[in-house]
């Protein structure tokens, strides 16, 4: 119950941001919501099920291109976003069938490779996708301020949906099954859990919202090309965010997203030439000293304080 309250409150507060009147702040908030969606989605397959997926970039790019191509052919934007999510989900289910039987390293590599393959396919079909030249989306007839708000609400709405799904999954049989799979897949199998179905469900969930996020992103920037929407950093950063916030928790991904984005903005403004190293540094520190992320750390502190006489 508490999770729902937190979710609603945070969403309402973010929705009130336009009152601050600063377009750039809205842009930052929109990016944070987008990464929160990516991180939360990754959490389904990576945090709950324990399967290290790098397919986030694949789903994102796929969603972006599907939506862009549909819109170039006349479909209205919101409908295109929905289609993008659906196609990403189906794609995840399809690919899942092929690679979810792999463990550990091989699964990780396979997911990386899927993104690269999709990127190359887009690159080499220019008549359809614009190829290396990129694709321009039809501009929305809206004032600048209205656009900033529109996309903030779109991403915010998506992250609300995604987190709500996460809350539901956590409490459900699916969530329980996934946690069993993470701890010991063979034992889970023996216990009668249909690991194949559960893993596929998790993988599909990890794709649907990311696909929609990619679609919204495409409209937001008006122009997409393969290196940008299939960027491997789109797969790595959500992972780092979840690790930062806490694997398998509900709000960990969003917290991680907020912290990482804030840090990046600080670094971009002040340390132009070493921003990549700064991100690397955060990752190293995180892994060496904060292996479980921040949310479990805070929980521990709170628990300890509560327990002391």
């Amino acid at each position, binding site marked *: 119950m508490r999770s729902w309250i937190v979710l609603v409150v945070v969403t309402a507060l973010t929705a009130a941001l336009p009152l601050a009147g*600063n*377009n*750039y702040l809205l*842009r930052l908030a929109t990016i944070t919501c987008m990464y929160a969606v990516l991180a939360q989605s990754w959490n389904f397959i990576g945090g709950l099920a324990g399967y290290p997926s790098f397919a986030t970039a694949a789903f994102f790019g796929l969603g972006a291109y599907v939506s862009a191509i549909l819109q170039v052919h006349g479909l209205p934007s919101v409908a295109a976003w929905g289609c993008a999510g659906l196609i990403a989900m189906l794609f995840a289910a399809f690919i899942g069938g092929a690679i979810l039987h792999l463990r550990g390293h091989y699964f990780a590599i396979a997911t990386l490779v899927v993104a690269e393959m999709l990127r*190359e396919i887009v*690159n*080499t079909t*220019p008549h359809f996708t614009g*190829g*290396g*030249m*990129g694709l*321009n989306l039809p*501009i929305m007839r809206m004032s*600048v301020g209205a*656009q900033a708000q529109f996309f903030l609400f779109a991403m915010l709405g998506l992250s609300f949906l995604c987190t709500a799904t996460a809350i539901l999954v956590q409490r459900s049989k699916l969530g329980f099954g996934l946690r069993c799979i993470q701890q010991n897949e063979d034992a889970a199998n023996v216990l009668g859990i249909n690991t194949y179905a559960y893993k596929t469900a998790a993988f599909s969930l990890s794709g649907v919202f990311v696909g929609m996020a990619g679609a919204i992103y495409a409209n937001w*920037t*008006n*122009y997409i*090309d393969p*290196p*940008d929407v299939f*960027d491997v950093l789109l797969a790595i950063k959500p992972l780092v965010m979840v690790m930062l916030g806490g694997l398998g928790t509900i709000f960990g991904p969003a917290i991680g997203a907020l912290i990482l984005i804030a840090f990046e903005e600080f670094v*971009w*403004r*002040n*340390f*132009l*030439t*070493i*921003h*990549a190293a700064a991100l690397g540094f955060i990752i190293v520190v995180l892994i060496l000293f904060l292996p479980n992320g921040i949310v479990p750390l805070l929980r521990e502190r709170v628990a300890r304080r509560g327990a002391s006489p």
Partner: protein
Amino acid sequence: MFTSYLSRRVAAGIAAAGVAVLPLLPAAAQDAIKVGAPLPLTGPLSPEGLKQKRGYDLWVETANTKGGIKAGGKTYTVEIVYTDYASNTPRAVQSAERMITDDKVNFLFAPFGSGATKAASAVSEKYGIPMIAPTASSAEVYDQSYKFLFGTLTPNETVSEPIAKLVTENKPNIKRVAILARNDLFPLAVAQAFEKAVKAQNLEVVTFERYAIGTMDHAAAITQMRAARPDWVYASGYINDLILIRRQMNDLGLKPQILTMIAGPAYPEFAKTVGPLAENITSMSWWHPAVRYKGKDVFGSTEAFNAAWEKKYGGEADYVDASSAVDGAIIQLGIEAANSIDPAKVRDAIAALDVETFYGKIKFAASGQINSLQPPVFQLQGGQPVVLWPPAIKQGELRFSP
């Protein structure tokens, strides 16, 4: 020399950080015009980003030393707000928007290249801030009926048709053409323009191959081209691609009578790196230090620009350097013509420009792309670029390889 690389990098880093901090300093006593310049100062495109920066810096220095820009009864100094978008296009768009909303720039320079320019132009159009693009030549960039986007590289046909005509006029038995293009907005577009141009001269395109961005081995493509026995080989890409292609052509015995490459030979680094293999490579360039124009811009003439460049940076400018510098000069001309720094008025003034500058005649088509230039065709002879066309500035004759 190693330590000087290091210290130059450190100095550049500090300078960049310093410049980035500039807008946060309290406003100078004199009014300043701010121009935003999102650049790829790191990442794969950083060599080009740094060229753009050099061009802008020379303009700022020249304009301020000559008394600033006068408009509406006031005198302004000019300053540039830089940010590094790390060769990442979405970041370029983001930076452009932030410069407008936070840094309150009056005008914008476009990021590097056709792709990023196209993406960022949506922002400048949204906010009604004039943006000038020094490095976007593909027509696709200018096809959205935007009013606030201008570019100082002429369309890709202008760097394709002249050389097609030149070669066929000089040696009619050149018949078979092989094309190798990088699968990227500009290199692919310019290769396609070239294909059209040679077909219009009744030449036969025997192969047209595309290579992926980041390809490190062209043996397969070159072997294939060799099998087609071309008289003329054309390769498009960026400098690192072209260096590799040239070497591998030599390794694999592909020796056409004419070899044309774009867009690397225009840079002095190309001939230096490739050494004797650069001999007889033909190319086109949107501008070349050998041109001679007298202009109403702040530099005054091509010779004066070359001298100023030599003094500040040593060596010669290439077309990216010059295009960037002239973009600054164009903003200045627009402000002076409009006698105001109001974006809409300056935009109209720039659109109406019809003026000579050190770079050549500046006149923009309705799409915003410049259409008043004749990009020179040149050939590397003895390690130096020799202009072959247009006739007014011709320096030498076209040579064929045996």
